[in-house]
């Protein structure tokens, strides 16, 4: 799958400028980088929530994109109804709710869930359907450790079974290590370095990458 090069400029300031990318189905790509490095902007443009500076598609025609924003939105209806918005298979919804420990909250109004519960609902909602490209923007940032693990398993399985391209934005290098195949490092709006996780984490080629990884004590 090819993603064409594009950029994003706000009032003359370019916050994102990325080259063409070639991604492989069935693989999980983890996007890392500091705050404001353009990760969410990249995700939004691919999800067609935000227009890029250049007109024209960033993706080939016919590619379906699933996306969970950094700020989750829970609709004013029950948790289960929210999840069923993703797809109508009720049995599947119940399976997902069980895996993500949402079963006891099925009938609660979703807009009153706690932070981590909302993230889990959003993940279950997306996993109801198959997409060719899935983008998750810090999906586990509000979750506790147990459900983070459960979610990671779910995400991994989803990518591997459905053979989609999965982009996972995260601030947790542990998480990237656990489930990503490749890592893309964003810095100041640019894709500085990318590659298989072992290579990038333990043998980064650029000083900026090395400096960023240092904070994690790697």
């Amino acid at each position: 799958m090819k993603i064409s090069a594009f950029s994003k400029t706000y009032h003359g300031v370019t916050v994102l400028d990325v080259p063409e990318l070639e991604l492989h189905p069935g693989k999980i790509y983890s996007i890392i980088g500091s705050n404001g490095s353009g990760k969410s902007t990249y995700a939004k443009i691919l999800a067609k929530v935000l227009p890029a500076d250049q007109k024209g598609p960033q993706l080939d025609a016919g590619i379906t994109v699933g996306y969970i924003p950094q700020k989750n939105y829970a609709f004013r209806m029950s948790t289960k109804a929210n999840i069923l918005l993703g797809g109508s298979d009720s049995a599947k919804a119940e399976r997902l709710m069980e895996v993500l420990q949402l079963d006891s909250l099925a009938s609660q109004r979703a807009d009153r869930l706690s932070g981590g519960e909302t993230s889990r609902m959003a993940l279950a909602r997306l996993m109801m359907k198959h997409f060719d490209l899935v983008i998750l923007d810090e999906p586990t940032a509000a979750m506790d450790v147990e459900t983070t693990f459960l979610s990671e398993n779910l995400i991994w399985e989803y990518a591997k079974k459905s053979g989609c391209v999965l982009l996972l934005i995260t601030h947790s290098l542990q998480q990237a290590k656990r489930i990503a195949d490749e890592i893309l490092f964003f810095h100041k709006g640019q894709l500085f370095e990318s590659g298989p996780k072992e290579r990038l984490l333990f043998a980064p080629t650029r000083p900026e990458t090395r400096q960023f990884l240092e904070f994690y004590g790697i």
Partner: protein
Amino acid sequence: MQSAFEKAIHLIMTGDAELCNILFVTARMSLTSSIIALLIGVPFGIWLGACHFRGKGLILIMNRTLMGMPPVVCGLLFYILFSGVGPLRRGKLLFTVNIMILAQVVLITPIVIGNMETYVSGIAPAIQETTRGLGLTRIKTLLLLANECIYQIFFVYMLSFARAISEVGAVSMVGGAIAWKTNVMTTAIMQYTNRGNFSLGIALGMILLTISLLVNTAITLLQRRLSK
């Protein structure tokens, strides 16, 4: 004031036949027109608030101008269109309740659209980010948006109804305020006022406000229920 109050009570107690007819026509007209305006204005307003396209600004400004359409002018236009010599004379609508409803729909719909547009443009971005991320259709997105602004829709309905029941300029023009047929509360109040019978005018006004109060209480309770 006191005598007006007594007159109001008396009118209701004696079940004055003409008053009953006026009340019935008023209810039919204002409920129908406010509901039609809602049915047209809410979807269109939500759509306007949620979409971005060239020329949207123009539509918004035009809609806001139509919000300020004076009822008399609206009534006059319909009068001319539907007159015996007007281009739409075959409709035979002049001096019927139906054309009063039509004129009111024209007056109220822009208000509904404007209100919904403003509200929805505030909440749409977050919702659209989510629905696009789930690959939902536009229709589904609009339905979800409607569900998210249910409290606002109730308010807009009350505003519409308020406008419908209190309006007199357009209604008297196209309806003709014909007794037993198109005379509504406001035109009756006008009539009594013109005759110098102010206390009867105030008495009818009190009855009208009481009806408004009852309708609003019912809708507010329903609104609370639905938005828990």
